[in-house]
């Protein structure tokens, strides 16, 4: 093997990264080549020095900052039910909330039927009669053949 090729493998030799056969070949060359041996020793000296670089950063505590950034403050519960809940919790929450709000809205709307009769009542007296009749109707207190019933009938007739 030419010296240039040998020298290109010296770092890998020093790092014990060569296959046995190759290592033996290179070591055999080094035993007979002063130039390559000197190069080997220079590299060895350099890497030994580099390995002396010490870094001691003291206690390391990254967890708090990481949790804050990914918003994982509490451990997730274990167990099958918890796993199912955790799996579906976030995705289900938004549509579930929307359904609930929609349901409440629809319920409110349906509880107040459109009052077309009211818009046709013209006089104040008729309105009062109508309101009285509606009130009694809502309270289910209109007995038949009573003054209240007559008010209701009048109110309805006046608006038809």
């Amino acid at each position, binding site marked *: 093997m030419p010296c240039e090729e040998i020298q*290109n*493998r*010296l*770092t*890998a030799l*020093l*790092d014990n*990264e060569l296959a046995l056969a190759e290592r033996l070949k290179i070591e055999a060359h080094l035993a007979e080549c002063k130039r390559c041996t000197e190069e080997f020793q*220079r*590299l060895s*000296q*350099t*890497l030994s*020095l*580099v*390995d*002396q*670089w*010490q*870094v*001691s*950063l*003291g206690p*390391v*505590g*990254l*967890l708090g*900052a*990481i*949790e804050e*950034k*990914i918003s*994982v403050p*509490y*451990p*997730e519960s274990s167990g099958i039910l918890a796993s199912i809940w*955790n*799996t579906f919790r976030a995705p289900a929450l938004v549509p579930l909330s929307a359904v609930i709000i929609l349901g409440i809205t629809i319920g409110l709307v349906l509880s107040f039927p459109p009052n077309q009769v009211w818009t046709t009542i013209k006089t104040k007296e008729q309105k009062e009669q109508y309101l009285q009749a509606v009130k009694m109707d809502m309270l289910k207190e209109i007995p038949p053949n009573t003054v209240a019933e007559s008010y209701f009938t009048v109110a309805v007739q006046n608006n038809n």
Partner: protein
Amino acid sequence: MNTNKGVDQDVQLMKRTAQGDSDAFKTIVVRHQASVLNVIYRFVGNRVEAEDLAQEVFIKVWKSREQYKPVAKFTTWLYRIVTNVSLNAIRRKRTSSLDCLAEIVSGDLSPVGQLLKKETNVVIKNAIDYLPPNQKMAVILHRFENLSYKEISEAMKISLPAVESLLHRASLKLTEILAPYFDKK
């Protein structure tokens, strides 16, 4: 260096993390934060920046947890993220400041010994700072995190001959830079 038991534990922890287990993720952070920070600090030379980047690494681990596949050692996958984050940081900011204050020299040495040690640290750090980013990262991963050439190849996504070439060229460059230091001694 991870034992086989430690390696298996990392894989199990990461599998649980992939299922959303934040306790497992926290364990991973605690187990590997020192190594990650050391690599990044050696690479960027600034403690504050190194901590920010180390956080970024673990956030990426969390965000890509569902894509994790245990085909290689967990640390190889982790160091791939470390490499990407570090190299991207250097690309964004071409200067790296020396942060000698963060380097605590061993208290066992005499004052003169401590001074010499600190001087050696600075000399070596300066020399490594001269290396191109890819060579620098390969040197840090190999010499200080004990990654094999194969592991570096997987972490840096380059071929095995490319790793050998990077490290050999780095050795030659460091020999050239440190030659006056050897002459002085």
